[in-house]
């Protein structure tokens, strides 16, 4: 309930940002829009194609398959990372040296650049020289992510879990730290079980940070590109070709700029739509009267 003060000079201060956003986002986006509605054979000659590319893309089985893989991947990593993050946060030391150490160790994966994460796992999992790959072979497990689709999936999921669970855990940890001690004491006096403490105190108090964690992980994983590209390159076959990998194949590999542009616009709108739904639900829930 902040008050508004009118001072029109304030708009001047926004101008530089506005200019920056124009160059970095709006102009490239308009280029994409241009490609999406036109056909071109090079030489900067464009022919109006209307909704043609969109229709083609909506009916493309290749796209449906990629979308299905994408949803499956995002669903699986959310189902693993969110509960795992909560469990990790619940078991972290609350204060002192060990708490700091835990925080530093957990922040490490988050600080590694995406392509490096991909490279690490690519090498780590290789059957010929990778530690994981060799170990699996030594244990007699038939593991090869370059030829077996299931192995490729498992590798990518474990990699994502390794990379991102700390984010969920850190958010939850911060949420847990903000619960006043009186709540835990009251629960002890009420002889509440550990599960009930989680169910009725911790989970409700975490609901805010959890929605943010889910939203962030959803958006991020739905757009995942670098790591699977480095590890599997979308293979074997098309087994790990997620939406953005498919998009890049289409645009750069095949140079189908029109369909790719239509595809990327739809991709963008889908993410925007889902984020908006999320935001609306979160705000509506807060409006229920949490003081």
């Amino acid at each position, binding site marked *: 309930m902040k008050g508004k003060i009118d001072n029109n000079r304030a708009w001047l201060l926004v101008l530089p940002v506005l200019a920056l956003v124009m160059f970095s986002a709006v102009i490239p986006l308009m280029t994409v829009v241009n490609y999406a509605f036109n056909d071109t054979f090079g030489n900067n000659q464009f022919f109006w194609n209307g909704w043609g590319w969109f229709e083609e893309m909506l009916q493309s089985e290749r796209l449906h398959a990629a979308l299905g893989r994408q949803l499956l991947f995002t669903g699986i990593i959310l189902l693993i990372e969110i509960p795992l993050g909560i469990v990790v946060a619940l078991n972290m030391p609350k204060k002192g040296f060990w708490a700091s150490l835990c925080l530093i160790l957990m922040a490490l994966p988050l600080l590694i650049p995406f392509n490096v994460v991909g490279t690490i796992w690519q090498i780590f999992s290789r059957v010929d020289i990778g530690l994981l790959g060799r170990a699996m072979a030594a244990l007699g497990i038939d593991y090869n992510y370059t030829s077996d689709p299931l192995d490729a999936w498992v590798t990518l999921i474990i990699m994502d879990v390794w990379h991102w669970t700390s984010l969920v855990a850190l958010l939850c940890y911060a949420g847990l730290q903000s619960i006043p001690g009186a709540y835990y004491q009251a629960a002890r*006096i009420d*002889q509440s079980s550990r599960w009930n403490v989680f169910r009725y105190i911790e989970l409700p108090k975490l609901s805010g940070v959890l929605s943010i964690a889910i939203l962030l992980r959803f958006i991020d994983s739905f757009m995942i590109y670098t790591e699977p590209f480095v590890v599997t390159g979308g293979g074997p076959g098309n087994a790990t070709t997620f939406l953005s990998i498919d998009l890049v194949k289409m645009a750069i590999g095949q140079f189908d700029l029109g369909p790719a542009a239509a595809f990327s616009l739809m991709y963008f709108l889908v993410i925007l739509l889902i984020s908006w739904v999320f935001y609306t639900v979160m705000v509506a829930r807060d409006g229920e009267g949490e003081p």
Partner: protein
Amino acid sequence: MAQITLANIAHSYAPAASPSDLALKELNHTWQDGGAYALLGPSGCGKTTLLNIISGLITPSRGRVLFGDQDVTDIPTEQRNIAQVFQFPVVYDTMTVFENLAFPLRNRGGRRAEIRARVELVARMIGLDDLLHRRARGLNPDIKQKISLGRGMVRESVNAILFDEPLTVIDPHMKWELRTQLKSLHREFGHTMIYVTHDQTEALTFADKVVMLHQGQVVQIGSPEALFERPEHSFVGHFIGSPGMNFIDARVAGRSAFIAGCEIALAQDYGIPSGHTQLGIRPEYIRLTDGDGLPAEIKGIEDVGHRRIVRAGVAGFDLNVVLPGGGGGELPGARLHFPPEHIGIYQDQWRIEGQSP
């Protein structure tokens, strides 16, 4: 239910403490079963430490805590069978009011019908019966604190209910209602109640016995009336009452006290006390006259509705005099008369007793 005994309890937050570091100095006290007690003192006086020792959140550095005959010093909170109401409302947001109140009973495996009956009884007594099926989230803080209060009351067999400044977040108008309900709950259920507060009105109106703490030390344990009429320590005199007791340096000899050369009659013979001697008298008992008495300079008069507070100066000391009834009107005089039966003599801050004739 049981009586609670604190035997030679002392506590320090630092490991190897000298006596001056003690957050709570040595204390022996028995809380009678079914009593209503208040722990009263300013912030940092050790009252919360004492409460935490009883609840089991803190293990005292020295001494034992007994519930009945059982030594519970090393027993954790959840096994002490106590209830506690905190400064800020602690409610389970996602549960309904009914579920909140039933929670401690359900955890102990009560029968459904019994739980329902008990919850409904408690809810009726604190005026929550219309809200039982509302979700706790979104209720205002006053009601949330009532829920916490109700959760404290709902178990019949608790050893004690501890209150940690429970009315802090409550609106003044609502405080009356909640205090009244607390009193009637105490009468109805007969639980032992221990109430921590820095607010003298809350302590004195709630408790049968008030434990007054000052710098980690219990300076007086007594009925509200005793704390008001016969403060054992000048801090009690100062802290209880609004405004607090007046203290003036005086020379005492036998049945007389002398202030600025003026003789004041005393009810008892105090001999010649050594040390720093002060005369203490409540502002309510000083009478303004134009006859015999201490000459005083009237510095101001404040009207607080039901009474007037006269600010007076005597021999370099500031004194308050309370006149019953508000409104205007002339003061009866500018001399102060101290009725002997209401005068206390304090030697190095502690009240001393004289010889009665």
